[in-house]
Structures are given as C-alpha cells and as structure tokens.
C-alpha cells in the first residue's frame, strides 16, 4: 500500500524523557476506516505514542504520517482534519455544554453543527447545564463532541472510558461504534481488554515502549494458545512437580504455566479436558483453593507474552 493510503503510519518511533525510554522503536499502521487499539499497562508508552501522533510531542526519532501528511509541513491542515480527546482534560466548569461546544466548533473551518454534535453525544438534556455539574460519563461525552467538532477523518481517543462506571462505559462504546459506522479511522488507547475486544478491528499490545504483539483480537487470543483458560490454585500436594508434569501432558492442554501453586492452562475444549484435570488432581491427592475457567482474553495474551498481569504490570 502506498504511504498516503494509510490513515496512520509510524516508523521507528523513539522518545525518551530523561532516563525513561517511553517509546522504544515503534512501527504502527492503521488503514482508513479502521479502529486500532493500543493496549497495555500504565507506563507502556501508549499516551506518549498517541501524543506524538497528535503533534503535541516531538519524537526523538522516527517518522509520523497522518492521512499522508506530516506535522512538520502540514500542521495547520492536520489540526483541521483530526479529532482529539486527551486524558484528563477538565473543561471550564462555569461554561455550559453548548457554550463549550460552540467555542471549539469555531476553531474549525468545516464540521458538524453544534446541534448535531449535542445530539450525536446525547447531551440534549444537558445542553444548557454547566460543565461543572455533569457526571463523569457526560463529561467524557462532551470531550467526544469536541473531538468530533471538525468532522474529523481520524480520531484519537486516549483512555476514553477510564474511571467511568460500567453503564457510562457501555454508553461511550456505543458512541465509538457509531463513529466507526460513519467510516472514521479511530486510534484508541486503553488498558481494558474488553474495550479493545469489543471496539477494535486490530490491536497492538504495548509494553515498555515496544509493540509486543499485533493482530485482530481473535488472532491475538489464538496466540494465547486456546479459547478457554483454566486456572486452579493448589493448597497442598505431595509432589508438585509431578502434578505439573501430568497436567501439562493431559490431552487438550495447549499451554501450561505454574507460579506459586497457581496453575494456568490454555484448553481448546473445556468440556473434554476438565474431567481429565480433576482425575489427575484426585490421583495426586491435591487440595484446591480455587478453580476458575474463562474464555481467553487479551489479558491472557499479555500474561503469556510478558509473564505479568495487565493491571499490575
């Protein structure tokens, strides 16, 4: 694909702050109309990456192309054509929703009307309300309205649902899905795996400034070694090593890791393999503290790739 066909094209991106290498050689592309997710723990370099894309941070090295344009040469045009929602912006409490939207709308040559924006983010009832009185979810929807004021082709959302309650989060997801339907390219950072799974066509998993995996959520989950994950905690067993060996050897177990008595197995068919697991546990005389199964998620991919959990990494 020629360079200008990509909505986003990053090559060899590096950025350090003092001793901290925030982004360490990142290549990333997003096609037009695609929703690309950057998933990773806090400090993985997601925000730095996205702020470099937004032209707010200058990279130490590497190339950034958005919609075939570069910040060095086409900053004014790029600002008109992209939409941005930043982490933790606090809008002015004493302005109303409508006043805030009208102010931001005035910065763009073309775009949606104030009415259309209010309707799009479903803040009609709060139109005349002061920003200071909005709930977290409503404030975040206001931030989305401002990101969309110029009817952008490319939208950057930096942790759009962090700190929201589940209902507000689902509400925002619906809004993002609406944006996808209108053909916009969306670049989204998150540390919620369900969010990435639900919204993103493709996900890049980041850790310590690098991209450690990339693909559709399905492909990545397949990477975790299976569709189902079994986790069990062993309280007491005569021979821990023999137990681990026998579990690993079971038919249908694709991956097995054991850490301090917690065994984690990737299993292709839960209903066939579970009886075998219990038989082994019985024979080895193991006492369990817990037993859990769940469908494999991007979290499991992260654990497999880094040996750490996404949340406490």
């Amino acid at each position, binding site marked *: 694909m020629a360079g200008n066909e990509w909505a986003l094209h990053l090559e060899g991106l590096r950025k350090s702050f003092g001793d901290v290498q925030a982004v360490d050689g990142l290549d990333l592309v997003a096609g037009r109309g695609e929703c690309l997710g950057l998933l990773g723990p806090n400090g993985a370099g997601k925000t730095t990456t996205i702020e470099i894309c*937004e*032209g*707010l941070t200058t990279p130490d090295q590497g190339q950034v192309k958005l919609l075939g344009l570069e910040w060095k040469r086409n900053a*004014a045009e790029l*600002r*008109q054509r992209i939409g*941005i929602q*930043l982490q*933790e*912006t*606090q*809008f*002015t409490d*004493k*302005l109303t929703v409508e*006043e805030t939207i*009208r*102010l*931001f*709308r*005035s*910065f*763009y*040559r073309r775009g949606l009307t*104030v009415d259309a924006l209010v309707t799009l983010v479903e803040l009609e009832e709060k139109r005349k309300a002061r920003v200071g009185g909005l709930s977290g979810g409503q404030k975040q929807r206001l931030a989305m309205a*401002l990101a969309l*004021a*110029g009817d952008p082709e490319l939208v950057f959302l930096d942790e759009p649902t962090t700190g929201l309650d589940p209902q507000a989060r689902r509400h925002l997801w619906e809004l993002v899905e609406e944006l996808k339907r209108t053909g916009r390219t969306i670049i989204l950072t998150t540390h919620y795996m369900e969010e990435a799974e639900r919204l993103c066509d493709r996900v890049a998993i980041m850790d310590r400034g690098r991209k450690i995996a990339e693909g559709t959520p399905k492909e990545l989950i397949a990477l975790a070694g299976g569709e189902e994950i079994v986790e069990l905690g062993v309280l007491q067993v005569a021979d821990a090593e023999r137990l681990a060996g026998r579990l690993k050897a079971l038919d249908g177990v694709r991956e097995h890791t054991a850490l301090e008595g917690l065994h984690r197995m990737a299993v292709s068919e839960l209903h066939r393999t579970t009886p075998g697991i219990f038989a082994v546990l019985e024979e080895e005389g193991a006492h369990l503290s817990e037993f859990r199964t769940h469908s494999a998620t991007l979290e499991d991919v992260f654990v497999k790739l880094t040996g750490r959990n996404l949340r406490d990494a």
Partner: protein
Amino acid sequence: MPKLSEFLDRSSIFQLTWTRFRLMLREPEAIFWIFIFPILLAGGLGIAFRNRPADVLPVAATNAQMVAALNQSAELHAQLLNESEGQHALATGRVVLVVVALAAGVRYEFDDTNPDGRTARRAADHALQRAAGRRDVLATSDQLVHEVGSRYIDFVVPGLLGMNLMGSAMWGLGFSIVDMRQKKLLKRMVASPMPRSEFLLSFLFSRLAMLVLEVAVLLGFSWFAFGVPFRGSLWQLGALCVLTSLAFSALGLLVASRARTLEAVSGLMNLTMFPMWILSGIFFSASRFPSMVQPLVRALPLTAAIDALRGNMLEGLGLGQMLGPLAILLFWCVVPFALSLRIFRWR
C-alpha cells in the same frame, strides 16, 4: 439578523473573547475585587482623610499660669500635670508636648519626628512668649483657600485607579491561563486548530471590554461622591488606562507563561506586585523615597502609570507633556510580551 449571529458563532476570536468575558462575569469574587473593593477603599480613604479644620493639640504644663497662657491659643488645649505625669502622657500619646517650668524659662519636651509635636511646640512658644510680653512687629492676616484637587482624595484616586488596573490585568490573565494549564485545557485547545495568537488576543480584548466598566465605575463614583477633578482630556485619560492595562496584561502573561499550578502563579504575582504596592506612590507620593532608589521607583510600570494618571487628572497635562512615563509604560508593554511569547508553556 441571523447572518450576524451565524458569523459570530463561527468566529473563533469572537467566541474566545466572549467566553473570557462571560467567565469573568460568572465569577462573583472577581466582580467584588474589581468593582466593589476600589469603591470601598476610595470611600473609606475619602472619609478618613477628608480636610478638617485644624486639630486642637493636647499639651501639658507643670504650673497653672502656663496652662492658662497656653489655653489662650486656639490651637492648643492644655492641662496641668506634674513633670513625671506629663512625660508618661507624652509617652502614651495623650499629649504631644509637655512644657516644664524651670527656675529661669521653660523646657519643651516633645517628639520632633511627630509633625503635631512640632506644631504644638511652635504654638506653645508663641503663646508663652506673648504672655511674657513679646509683641509682634509685623502686621499679618490669613486668607483660607480650600482648593478641589489639592485634597488627599484627589491625590489617591489616580493611585487607586492605577492599582486596580494592575491587579485586574495581572490576576485576570495570570490566573485564568495557569488554571487552564493546570486543568490540561490549554493543551487540549492547542491540540485543536485554534490560532494561538487569537487565544492571547482574546485575553486582551476581554480585558479592554472589562476596563471600560471598571474605570467608569471607580472614576464615576469618585466624581459623584467626592467631586474629584478631571482636568485633562478624557480621551487621553482613556488612552492612558488602555496603555496601563496593556502593560500589566503583558506582565501578567509573562508571570503566567511557565507556572504549572495556581499556587506557583499566586506567589509569583504577589512577588511582582508587592514592590509596586509599596514603591509606586498609590497612597503617598513616590518622591518621598530616598534619591538613591528613585531610578528603580521611576522604572516601575505602576509608578509611571500613576504619575501619568495624576498628571492628566490633577494637573491637566497632555500626553505630549508626559513622554517619560509613557515611554516607560510602552517598554513594559513590549518587553514582557515579547519575552512571554518566547517562553510560554503551551501545555
């Protein structure tokens, strides 16, 4: 006119300016400091320092004859005290002069740094010398003149105006900018296509709009309540206010150009304004400071502003006669503005 409102909706400079103006009006504390406080201050000072007939000064003397002689003077009220009582009364400020009778003549005890003490000494000496038989050799008479424009209130109103222009410009700019920076709103605005020059201009425009109200309220009150004179041209007075406000806006911008928190900017603001509160002659003439520090005092923007405002209002000077202060104000417009553009932290 739907066309005009549509145009204004789409004009970023109008929206930015109107937003600033709107936010100022929604800040009740700001309204108090900008409008009510200077009026209270002017009112209070005007009443406290109103011109009164000359005070009768309390003095003490150590014998009854002298008390009677001193009470002949309209300027003095004398009481009989012994020497130690008199000294105690002097130390506690109940009298300003003690007259002690000696074997030959009298001794005056008073604090020569207290103007009332000096006045009392002159009046007492005159009264006692007369009682002792001295006669004046020159015939004199008094004609009393109470000129509007020479009163303290006339002097202090231009000072208050200058102080108010300084405070509202610096706080108005500095606080809002740092507040927006702290809330990451500045970063968000810079991430949009908003022209940065319009962002800065919007502060100046809203400042000027506010200025009209602010100046009109303070000067209107002073004129109405105290009859403070306006001897210079009114449009030149307006121009001086604008120039003063621009200079302090530039200074406010500079103070706010790097600070990340409201605490930091508050400290910097006070640090910047404090020397001017003291040195710039708001409440008393700046020429009272020693000549060694005069170059510094004269170089301060508030001194220049207040000198020019007094020149216009009290002396009726034209702008052409005040090129010195004007040049200093202009300098304070250009240099801080240029500097802050270079170092401004946009995120």
